[in-house]
């Protein structure tokens, strides 16, 4: 498991992120995206620093982090596999792909494989509804995913 960032690094880097967003109207979401891009999740240690920087309470920052599906409160696996669960993909055989992914990885939704290699998340629509089932692997979209293509994709990420 990745270790939490060292306090000095965190403060320095976070200070730079806050400075980058100093002129933003409504800066919290862009800041949280930047934090997650840096560490792969939003470390608890970052919340009081962000709160102080924006002059809001730590509870407010926590409330925002916990509201949105994208923000993680703990590190994910080395690779992120998101599979679309929405209706259009279901109509094209999405259930089979979901079941195959869970069986192959041995995890349920939001789970991470024992070796920390892959995290499986549901996603509700990638806008690829005529070419589903669709998935997103480490930010890259893939479509026409059947069980065979899923196997290839999972092998590519070392699962």
């Amino acid at each position, binding site marked *: 498991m990745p270790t939490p960032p060292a306090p000095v690094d965190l403060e320095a880097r976070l200070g730079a992120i806050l400075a980058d967003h100093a002129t933003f109207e*409504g800066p*919290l979401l*862009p800041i949280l995206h930047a934090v997650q891009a840096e560490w792969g999740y939003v470390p608890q240690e970052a919340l009081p620093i962000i709160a102080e920087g924006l002059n809001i309470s730590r509870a407010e920052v926590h409330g925002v982090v916990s509201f949105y599906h994208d923000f993680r409160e703990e590190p994910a696996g080395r690779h992120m596999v998101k599979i679309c669960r929405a*209706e*259009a993909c279901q109509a094209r055989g999405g259930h089979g792909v979901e079941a195959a992914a869970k069986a192959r990885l041995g995890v349920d939704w939001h789970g991470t494989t024992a070796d920390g290699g892959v995290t499986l998340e549901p996603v509700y629509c990638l806008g690829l*509804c*005529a070419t589903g089932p669709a998935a997103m692997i480490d930010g890259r*979209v893939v*479509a026409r995913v059947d069980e065979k293509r899923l196997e290839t994709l999972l092998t590519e990420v070392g699962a």
Partner: protein
Amino acid sequence: MSKLKIYVPRDAAALAVDAEKVAEAVFAEAKIREIEVELIRNGSRGMLWLEPMVEVEKDGVRHAFGPVTPHDVEALFDADWGKHALALGPTEEIDWMKRQTRLTFARVGVIDPLSLDAYEAHGGLKGLRRALGMTGTEMIDEMKESGLRGRGGAGFPTGIKWDTVRLAPASQKYIVANADEGDSGTFADRMLMEGDPFSLIEGMAIAGICVGATKGYIYLRSEYPEAIHTMNEAIRIARARGVLGASVLGSDFAYDMEVRVGAGAYVCGEETSLLNSLEGKRGVVRAKPPLPAIEGFLGKPTVVNNIISLGTVPVIFEKGAAHYRDFGLGRSRGTIPIQIAGNVKFGGLFETAFGTSLGALVDEIGGGTATGRPVKAVQVGGPLGAYFPRSKFDTPFGYEEFDGQGGLIGHAGVVVFDDTADMLGMARFAMEFCAVESCGKCTPCRIGAVRGVETVDRIARGDASAIPLLTDLCDTMKDGSLCALGGFTPYPVMSALTHFPDDFHANAKEAAE
């Protein structure tokens, strides 16, 4: 000899089926053969079953080939991009293209989305130049006359919304483009942003100049990485070329804009929740009034419009309100980019005047199911839209027409299901989705959706007495919810129950036996 022009789409739907590898193969093969190629990365033409669809220009006419795999490229060069099993003929002559009226999507798939010169050569910026010579009142009249209504689904007249913001006194006003296209079965916003981003920029600039807003935001969902990239690039180019900035096209008007990325919350497609999110808060729905047009982003008057609404503004100003208004049916004026998706043979984006029947869209244009099995149900308008059975296929595509049939057109997504679909399962999913995505502010949605899942599960176990309970729960959610998430979840649930009762009673019968 002039270069051979080859188009390989960069739309996410093409990239997701290996268009990048096709582009690399084209490049490599051309190099081996010492053929000079101009490789253009266009948006998608919208015939998504043919993606990756490669086009080659010959004697000024574009010929289509698809779906092309990287392995096909060598043979296509061997055939000199002529006679080949994947050849589809001139793109514009394909029946699916010929049947459309492309106004909003006129340039999508045609031009390089990041070439401002190509944009201008295809009519771009004409609308903005015309708008710069008009007064605010004249611009509002133009919008009202066009009959354009909110394409996000609510169908509110865009001109009236703009006028409310225009007349609201304030030191700062905003234009917010809602690109939180979370409805399953919809991808028109994504295709427009990836295929013709300048049209959205132009539409937002016209809106800004009309209402007196100098700043705009596109709230773009994080599930659309390609659209985020393309929009950011297009804004950078537009700023460098003086379309955006302190002096829009050299005029006295200032307007600038930026992209803000969402964070995976479906409810943020609701405009007040979106505004909270944009302000950096939890995406919780606000009670209305006050309307966002009076108190929107940071409490200032704000136009919140859908991407398709704003992307249609340039063509209205370019060709005139009457040109746009003359298409359509009843109070649904102009064209609508319909997204045909799910289990369908020919899926994609089909822009046409309002009025086409649902049946024609599914059977004729969509070609029936991809699996070849009979169509069982069609969900129109995303996860909050009703399931239509074949008996309602004569419903013409229009706001009032769908409302009259207990449905909604929403963002014009049409998702086709074959006869293997389990409608009780789909009703359960609608409730589950509402429970996952509820912002939690109002009780009918927050609690009702959870109870809804449990109630559907009771029915699935054969407890028919739970059916009236589900109906009652749906009434409560419909009447008592603050926004469309809780308020419209009953549409898919009740339509599934009403039109496909066998799927709900099957287990009850088994239990009784």
